[in-house]
């Protein structure tokens, strides 16, 4: 019996209607085989639009529906629900994209209309072969994995843990806190970063629902929404976390000092160390690359003095598998490597420092006890702050790093507060977009900072006259005055931009998510779904999604938590049934498919001499379907017959 197809051509206002002659396409659709009704409508996704389709299904006995409108990635779920509401299986519906891939790509009305007709006929021919399918419902594991223990991860972890759900918080470093733990004051309120961060860190450390896995990373990740398995590698601290009380004796007694990463190399730490005093967990870690026991087989003083016997040089790395229903990636950012810009002299000129190094200088517990000092120990008489280092730059990163203008203003303020130095700020634009930001900028304008509008061309120590001798000369075009200026200063602070983390590719591969053009993780939709990804159950938050300040990071952390809780409270999710099925009568047992499945979903039944697919493991990629030389495997909703119908329809015109 022939199918009865209803076809609906959407104008989408002028989005489609301006370029595609929707009436003509509907008239054309009427003539296609098995089409019993074809209508054009302004906004098919609207309530009346959906009602119109439902009415036709009921009154005309439609067995298949095609809607030609926006991308299926946009409204396929909407129309599937509508169709289901009228009693028709949602998979007997096919969408034709005549917007994103038709009306929006050309201004030629004739070409666009002709193209729309072809696209519609392909969908109509295909839908004849659509079969009714049932979605698979799977339960959602309420446990949550959060990767990254910076402020974003901490926020998300606390929100979720407070609601009663279990959180595995994995952090690569020996302590949580991320970059924020290294900041001194935060804009625009000049809150002390540690004061607002450390209480949250303590909450995380003490929360009964949060299992903190620090000094760890995720090496393997598999499964599907609601049912993920993550393999976590616990790197050896060589200190037993359960025994250690954080008394700090070991750190005191250790004879070896090495440059501290936390202090950007400006200060020292011991070979057995905690990154900073308020570290959570407070268990120290032994740096085996420097520790005398590991390198020379001597010392072991820490072990001698530890009152709890917590030092364990034999500790090995461990792997832990956890089962979770959802994941939040809050892996943060890395700073632009200023040494790439040779003209700025970072790494060569000793008093050219980065903004993070400045944070450590001005920090009360930093290497200079909060005093801003040059390398020779003296305070600077003049300081230059250089904006947009590595950002807004075709040679490095095109994008704006969003936070640098504000933290540069803060830097200027702190210099004023702590020294008598003259401050020069070299900016291109002043981006003070947030709550209280413009007011903070105004404040700085009154603080006697000299703002020079121009991108710095060079920082040099080669003087051109006596007044430049012994100074760092910042060379920049002052675009407002229209002249090139040479400004001699003692200290140059480079406001470096934010970049994706160095291991972002590896992490993206592990969790199988995409990245944007600039390398940060790709959100599902920039406006409407900024913390979701294309992978269901996998969320991103904070600066791993794009440069952002602390308020926005916290907001995203909370948003991701809300998304997760929504998923968990739903208790079950529906999976797309586009899985592969083997037709037993046709399978010849050639075994070509067995090794092709990336999820090992295909096994061989020796007795029956045929391949068998475990439907729970099949993700529906279709690789086995294309490879089967007998044509014995079919992919639901993407059968050979359906795809051939699309090809035939397109080529027949």
């Amino acid at each position, binding site marked *: 019996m022939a199918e009865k197809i209803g076809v609906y051509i959407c104008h989408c206002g002028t989005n489609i209607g301006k370029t595609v002659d929707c009436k003509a396409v509907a008239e054309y659709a009427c003539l296609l085989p098995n089409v019993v009704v074809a209508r054009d409508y302004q906004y098919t996704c609207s309530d009346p639009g959906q009602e119109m389709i439902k009415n036709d299904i009921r009154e005309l006995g439609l067995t298949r529906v095609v809607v030609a409108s926006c*991308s299926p990635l946009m409204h396929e779920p909407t129309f599937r629900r509508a169709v289901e509401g009228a009693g028709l299986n949602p998979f007997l519906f096919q969408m034709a994209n005549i917007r994103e891939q038709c009306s929006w790509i*050309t201004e030629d009305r004739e070409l666009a209309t002709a193209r729309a007709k*072809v696209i519609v006929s392909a969908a109509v021919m295909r839908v004849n072969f659509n079969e009714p399918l049932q979605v698979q419902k799977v339960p959602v594991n309420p446990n949550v994995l959060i990767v990254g223990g910076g402020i974003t991860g901490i926020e998300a972890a606390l929100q979720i843990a407070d609601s009663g759900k279990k959180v595995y918080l994995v952090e690569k470093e020996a302590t949580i806190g991320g970059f924020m733990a290294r900041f001194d004051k935060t804009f625009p309120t000049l809150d002390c970063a540690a004061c607002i961060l450390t209480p949250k860190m303590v909450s995380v450390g003490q929360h009964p629902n949060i299992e903190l896995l620090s000094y760890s990373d995720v090496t393997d990740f598999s499964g599907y929404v609601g049912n993920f398995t993550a393999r976590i590698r616990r790197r050896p601290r060589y200190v037993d976390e359960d025994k250690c009380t954080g008394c700090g004796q070991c750190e005191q007694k250790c004879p070896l000092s090495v440059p501290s990463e936390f202090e950007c190399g400006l200060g020292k730490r011991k070979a057995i160390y905690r990154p900073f005093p308020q570290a959570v967990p407070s268990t120290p870690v032994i740096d085996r690359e420097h520790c005398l026991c590991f390198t020379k087989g001597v010392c072991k003083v820490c072990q001698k003095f530890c009152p709890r016997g917590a030092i364990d040089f034999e500790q090995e790395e461990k792997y832990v598998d956890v089962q979770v229903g959802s994941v939040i990636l809050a892996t943060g950012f890395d700073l632009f490597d200023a040494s790439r810009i040779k003209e700025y002299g970072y790494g060569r000129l000793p008093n050219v420092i980065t903004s993070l190094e400045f944070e450590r200088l001005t920090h009360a517990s930093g290497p200079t006890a909060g005093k801003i000092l040059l390398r020779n120990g003296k305070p600077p008489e003049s300081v230059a702050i250089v904006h947009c280092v590595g950002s807004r730059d075709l040679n490095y990163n095109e994008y704006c790093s969003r936070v640098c203008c504000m933290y540069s203003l803060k830097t200027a303020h702190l210099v004023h507060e702590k020294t008598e130095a003259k401050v020069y700020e070299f900016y291109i634009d002043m981006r003070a977009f947030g709550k209280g930001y413009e007011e903070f900028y105004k404040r700085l304008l009154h603080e006697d900072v000299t703002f020079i509008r121009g991108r710095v061309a060079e920082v040099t120590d080669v003087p051109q006259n006596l007044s430049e001798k012994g100074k760092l000369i910042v060379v920049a075009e002052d675009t407002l005055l229209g002249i090139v200026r040479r400004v001699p200063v003692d200290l140059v602070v480079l406001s470096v931009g934010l970049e994706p983390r160095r291991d972002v590719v590896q992490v993206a591969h592990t969790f199988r998510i995409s990245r944007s053009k600039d390398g940060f993780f790709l959100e599902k939709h920039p406006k409407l779904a900024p913390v979701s990804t294309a992978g269901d159950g996998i969320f991103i938050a904070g600066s791993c999604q794009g440069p952002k300040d602390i308020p926005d990071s916290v907001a995203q952390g909370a948003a991701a938590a809300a998304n997760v809780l929504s998923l968990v409270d739903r208790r079950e999710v529906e999976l797309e049934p586009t899985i592969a099925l083997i037709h037993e009568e046709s399978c010849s047992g050639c075994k070509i498919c067995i090794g092709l499945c990336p999820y090992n979903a295909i096994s061989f039944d020796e007795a029956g001499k045929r391949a068998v697919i475990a439907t729970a493991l099949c993700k529906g990629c279709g690789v086995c*379907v*294309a490879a089967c030389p007998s044509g014995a495997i079919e992919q639901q909703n*993407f059968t050979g017959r359906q795809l051939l119908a699309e090809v035939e329809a*397109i080529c027949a015109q």
Partner: protein
Amino acid sequence: MVIEMTERFEPKIVGFLCKWCAYTGADLAGTSRIKYPPNVYPIRVNCSGRVDPTLVLKALSTGADGVLIAGCHPGDCHYTNGNVKTIRRFMVLQKMLDQFGIERERVRLEWVSASEGERYARIVESMTEEIRALGPLNWKAKLEVAA
């Protein structure tokens, strides 16, 4: 099929786009209102690894002037390595198409990520112009002529 000399030849290219990367990238091109030649007709699949070479042959033999297969960059495949299987099939298919006398410009395998709308548009543009210069394939008509 007669083509009038005054009418410009519009290549008809069948495109197999994977939904995670290429199809999303193509959507992005449209959302960003990038204008490019409307000559590639998209067929959405879950993974470029679903593309059976038989489908390519079907397209070429029934009226397509070219076929584009677009998937995720190697290493980025949502299904781990579906695109590796695509490369394997494509390279042997290319050799066979050489034997059939089909120019290499007509069947292409490209990688387009979900954020590469501009790239997709440029690929379609270059492919369309190359095939326009080669002329229609018209395989069915050729078979009749060669009888």
